[in-house]
């Protein structure tokens, strides 16, 4: 693992992976959007509004996936003080926050015609809103300290404590009565969805994931370069 904690080695790997992530994002979105609009059928109850699912569900999954990634990076950063793990956490937070925001808004846009309301304070929706606040808290803490090491430590602790929210989100539809439907893809009995809808959903989910990898690499490279800039600035000040 130490091999990947080396920024120079990371930059070399990133240079190889990034074009692939970029190509996959374009291809998967092309295929996923085509299937979402043309090959997948309207739902027998929800009609054409069901197509919102193909952006809503991947966005929600990625909101949680990014948080898990951020929490793992935070744990590694706290325990082993790997320089890259804090960089990965910082780079992930805005992307995860964007996905969580999108899942909330597209959920609202789906809820209005189907449930008759933009919002309800039930367990699934509220725990997802808390996830958005956790991302915002993490980003605020990262920016609140002049000392990078203290910022990394404080935000990592917040990310780890907030990780308790992830199982709450996942099981919220089972533990509490919710307006939100139950799990229909990741269940013990396997997916409960027709394959004409499952495939576009999975391809869109992979498109979102490829997009995340692409943006993550760009943002991590930016953070690493910014660190180098800070070191040069210090040199400049000390040399003058």
């Amino acid at each position, binding site marked *: 693992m130490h091999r990947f904690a080396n920024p120079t080695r990371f930059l070399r790997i990133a240079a190889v992976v990034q074009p692939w992530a970029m190509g996959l994002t374009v291809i998967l979105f092309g295929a996923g959007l085509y299937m979402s609009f043309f090959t997948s059928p309207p739902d027998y109850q929800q009609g054409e509004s069901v197509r*919102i699912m193909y952006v809503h569900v991947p966005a929600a999954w990625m909101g949680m996936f990014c948080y898990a990634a951020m929490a793992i990076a935070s744990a590694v950063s706290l325990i082993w003080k790997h320089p890259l793990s804090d960089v990965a956490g910082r780079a992930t937070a805005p992307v995860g926050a*964007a996905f969580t925001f999108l899942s909330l808004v597209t959920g609202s846009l789906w809820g209005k*015609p189907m449930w008759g309301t933009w919002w309800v304070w039930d367990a699934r929706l509220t725990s997802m809103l808390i996830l958005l606040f956790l991302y915002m808290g993490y980003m605020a803490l990262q920016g609140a300290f002049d000392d990078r090491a203290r910022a990394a430590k404080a935000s990592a602790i917040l990310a780890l404590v907030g990780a308790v929210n992830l199982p709450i989100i996942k099981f919220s539809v089972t533990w509490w009565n919710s307006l939100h439907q139950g799990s229909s893809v990741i269940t013990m009995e396997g997916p409960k969805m027709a394959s004409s809808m499952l495939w576009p959903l999975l391809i869109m989910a992979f498109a979102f994931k490829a997009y995340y990898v692409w943006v993550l690499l760009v*943002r991590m490279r*930016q953070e690493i*370069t910014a660190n180098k*800039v800070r070191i040069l600035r210090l*040199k400049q000040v000390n*040399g003058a």
Partner: protein
Amino acid sequence: MQEFFSMGGYGTYVWSSYGLTAFVMLVLLVSSIRSLKSTEATFERLKQAVTPKENQKTEAPNGDEA
């Protein structure tokens, strides 16, 4: 065609969902790339500014390696 855009009467909801998702993801991608480019430019500029000074200091026996 008209039928496709109306989405069985749910057009407003469906298209605003896809539109907003595309907008947010594009803005995040473009701003990340632009921020990388500008940081890289700053880095190159600073490297040019700092390097000549270091060359002058090479006479010092304990030239600090950062």
